[in-house]
């Protein structure tokens, strides 16, 4: 079974100097996963880097949750396309080395 470690939302918000409402908003839009355990809310540690990225987009670039959703989707597409380009470059290299 997969085990996950969590961080309390209160602690996370204190560390990043943000309001808990920011996390709640991102959660409402389905952008982050929030766990409720014994009446306390937690964020999975494995999602920390991604959550920090969303907060930067929300707080620093003033992108609204819908916009963040679009950005994340497009970034995933870019990553997948970059991977595809790399594979194609490797394929080209194979043919170039043979000629």
């Amino acid at each position, binding site marked *: 079974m997969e085990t996950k470690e969590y961080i309390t939302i209160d602690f996370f918000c204190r*560390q990043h100097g943000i309001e808990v409402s920011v996390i709640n908003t991102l959660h409402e839009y389905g952008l982050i996963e929030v766990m409720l355990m014994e009446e306390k809310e937690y964020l999975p540690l494995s999602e920390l880097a991604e959550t920090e990225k969303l907060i930067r*987009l929300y707080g*620093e670039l*003033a992108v609204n949750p819908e916009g963040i959703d679009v*950005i994340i989707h497009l970034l995933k597409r870019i990553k997948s396309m970059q991977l595809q380009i790399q*594979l194609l*470059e*490797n394929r080209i290299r*194979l043919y170039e*080395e043979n000629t």
Partner: protein
Amino acid sequence: MSFIDYYEVLGINKNATEDDIKKAYRKLARKLHPDLNPNDKNAHAKFQKINEANEVLSDPVKRKKYDQYGEQWEHGEEYEQARKAQGRPKDGGGQNFSGDFDESNFSDFFASMFGGASEGSSRAQAKFRGQDFHSELAITLEEAFTTHARTLKIHDKNVRINIPAGIENGQTIKLKGFGGKGVNGGPDGDLFIKFSISNLPNVKRLGNDLYTSVDLDLFNAILGGEKIIETLSGKIKLIVKPETQNGTKIRLKGKGFPVYKKEGEFGDLFVTYHILIPTNLTEKQIELFKELQNIVP
């Protein structure tokens, strides 16, 4: 060290209002923010420049000093003394973004004129994520075939990394927290390592599959037989079918490259037969071939 035109960096003119500066900065930040340009060193460098420009132009005190002494920045010291004599006004400061910005990356020009980030600016209190480090590592195809550990020296720090078997040429792996130190208790940056993997002269890799060619003598090709070949995973015995044609390609399932982070899974090995025509034949051999030629329809 050369003069930096912060107005040009933000694409505004010298009469720009605070609002113009804020707008220009926000617009460029949205374009160049490290979160939107992962692994783009060029965008990161530009982002740091606009942050620096904003640090100066959004702060009335710094902007005044810059406007007065900008191109004669060497006289900054005299200005500083005069300012101290008048009493230090409160810094206005502007909003700066963190992303991947490292305070140590202010330009020499900025450091010379303002002596680093000001105490009164919003940056001094804020936590900043450390700089991301980027590195390239060249390994051989044999090395990429097995999971192994490597110690790298990154900014005078030894970093031991585990390289999983099956890593792809051009693939980048991220080591969280192995980048620059965070500022004011901010998180450390990450280390990105891009792998450059060279093919072997006679073994090419495409994804998880390997391609090689094997020389086969004419008699083995015609009559069939066995052939032992060296592969990255050891020796393999091939059964050569009778009447094998030149250029015949065979697939050896599961004898290719390991699949990245999937233990026990391998791609395939494709072997192309290259049939060698005998040379320096004796008269007797030529005679026999002629005989054969007359028999073969």
